[in-house]
């Protein structure tokens, strides 16, 4: 039961009804996003404050500081826009606009509920990746357009990190597409009789880590670390232009949590409840066939899952320290990309070897077993590597070098257990 059907019922089947439906949907999505960021910023401040054993905003708008973000927005709206001398007029002004545009455009294929989606492209996931990679270029534009050494350096480092972590994100998203046999987001939801989180957890974890790095959140927030490079590529932006970068980051984080919920957790569907129901012999629920009520319940389920993942993002931000830039890039190219390539090959081979028509649970457990196998083999390799290096250092009589790669940390942790 989609908006277009509703409008067709009211106005009849005329060509301009499509246009009206598209316009309504575009404006709804964009306004929803701009308004929900206000809630998200407040939520983040409150949750991180509690994690740090303090209270957070509690003065503006009642005891819970509910209108704090509104006050911040009003403050940003009345600040002067200082353009640094020598800044390239076109590039300097276009960069924040483009960033928000790219952040908004990806939401066109996000399935909110059965029937509530911007447009169900048959290349949905690929479209998402393309528009995300356009937002990488805007960072470079912002750094360049500011005519500031530090902004430029910050822009370079940001682009190096963003571009590096695109590779495991692209490759990790290949796995659900292989399993679901389609690139469309709605198709992936409908193909998940078991959530892919339990079927290929390694792909989910790798996607989650790359999403953390792509949106520039802790532990990968070197892009804007206040203590490191003084706000990085958006030093010279003031007022609402800075607000635009901030907005784009929050919209991007919400999108990544939504994408995780759709691709790995079943979106607006409830696969686990359906499994339990079929186990007990009852009919599985399918929200797509339940009309308006199904749409509303599906919307609620989707929002619950999206905010659940978003809370994990906030949790990680409040808990973990920042990673050094060479550790970030080493971790990506020397651990994440090889393990992702291996995982793709294993999933592809395994999925072809499983004869079609086997029980979904059997298929899922085989994939799960292969993922656990890959993780064990990797940990074993890292452990041997770490042990060998430690032996060499002991024999050489020198102290072991400082931890070079994040992989070493994992080996240490695995060894300690």
């Amino acid at each position, binding site marked *: 039961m989609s908006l277009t059907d509703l409008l067709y019922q009211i106005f009849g089947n005329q060509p301009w009804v499509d246009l009206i439906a598209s316009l309504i949907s575009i404006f709804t999505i964009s306004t929803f996003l701009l308004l929900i960021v206000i809630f998200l910023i407040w939520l983040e401040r409150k949750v991180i404050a509690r994690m740090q054993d303090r209270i957070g905003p509690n003065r503006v708008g009642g005891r819970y500081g509910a209108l704090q973000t509104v006050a911040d927005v009003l403050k940003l709206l009345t600040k002067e826009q200082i353009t640094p001398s020598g800044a390239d007029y076109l590039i300097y002004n276009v960069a924040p606009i483009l960033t928000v545009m790219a952040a908004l455009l990806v939401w066109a294929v996000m399935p909110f509920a059965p029937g509530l989606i911007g447009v169900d492209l048959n290349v949905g996931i690929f479209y998402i990746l393309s528009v995300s*990679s356009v937002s990488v*270029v805007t960072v*470079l534009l912002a750094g360049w357009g500011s005519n500031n050494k530090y902004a430029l350096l910050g822009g370079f480092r940001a682009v190096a990190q963003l571009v590096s972590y695109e590779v495991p994100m692209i490759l990790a998203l290949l796995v659900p597409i292989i399993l679901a046999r389609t690139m469309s987001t709605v198709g992936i939801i409908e193909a998940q009789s078991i959530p892919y989180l339990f079927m290929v957890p390694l792909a989910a974890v790798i996607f989650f880590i790359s999403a953390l790095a792509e949106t520039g959140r802790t532990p990968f927030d070197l892009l804007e670390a206040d203590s490191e490079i003084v706000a990085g590529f958006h030093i010279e932006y003031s007022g609402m232009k800075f607000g635009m970068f901030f907005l784009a980051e929050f919209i991007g984080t919400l999108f990544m949590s939504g994408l995780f919920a759709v691709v790995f957790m079943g979106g607006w569907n409830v696969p686990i409840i359906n499994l339990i129901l079929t186990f007990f012999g009852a009919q599985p629920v399918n929200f797509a066939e339940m009309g308006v009520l199904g749409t509303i319940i599906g919307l609620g389920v989707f929002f619950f899952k999206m905010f659940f993942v978003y809370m994990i993002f906030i949790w990680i931000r409040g808990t973990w320290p920042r990673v050094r830039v060479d550790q970030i890039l080493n971790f990506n190219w020397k651990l994440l990309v090889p393990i992702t390539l291996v995982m793709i090959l294993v999933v592809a081979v395994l999925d072809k070897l499983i004869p079609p028509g086997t029980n979904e649970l059997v298929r899922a457990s085989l994939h799960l077993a292969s993922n656990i196998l890959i993780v064990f083999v990797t940990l074993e390799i890292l452990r041997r590597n770490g042990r060998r290096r430690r032996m060499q250092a002991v024999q050489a009589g020198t102290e072991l070098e400082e931890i070079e790669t994040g992989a070493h940390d994992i080996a240490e942790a695995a060894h300690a257990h």
Partner: protein
Amino acid sequence: MFEQILFVLLTIITLGSAIVVVTHRNLFHAALALMVSFAGVAGFYITLDAGFLAAAQLLVYIGAISILIIFAIMMTRRLMQATEQPFNSQRGLSIVGALASLVIMALVIAQYWPIAPNSEVPMASKTILEDAILQGSVAELGRSFVNVDAFVVPFELASVLLLAALVGAILVAWPKTEDQT
């Protein structure tokens, strides 16, 4: 009607930014105009029902190659406001050469796709792409990549080409010994 307007708009954007790429003094602005023309080409792919190709154009050209070009510019120019002379002393000859190749190309293309209406098209029966691909089916495209009768050899050759590009670029860009860093 909508497609006509879109086509004209895309033509103006693409060709206009291409002209800016070639004639502008500031190299960095030229690189930006190149990105705009890439986006225009992606728009053309959309009007031709090739949505996957449009997204691939965005992903590869704007998302990766533009960054590579901008990095290459920054690697070889020290000042940010670097200016170049867009025209050199051979511009007369080059205009003649460009017009001549345009005329030759138009004649060759008109041989196989005649401009006059209702004329016979000799190449019409020679399309190798299936209808399903022409209608935008990505699954059909994927099947043609691994089908032995279709495009598997170019597919594997593409990976060899990428490998050669990677190795070659590392050999060229990376300093030979540590002292040359």
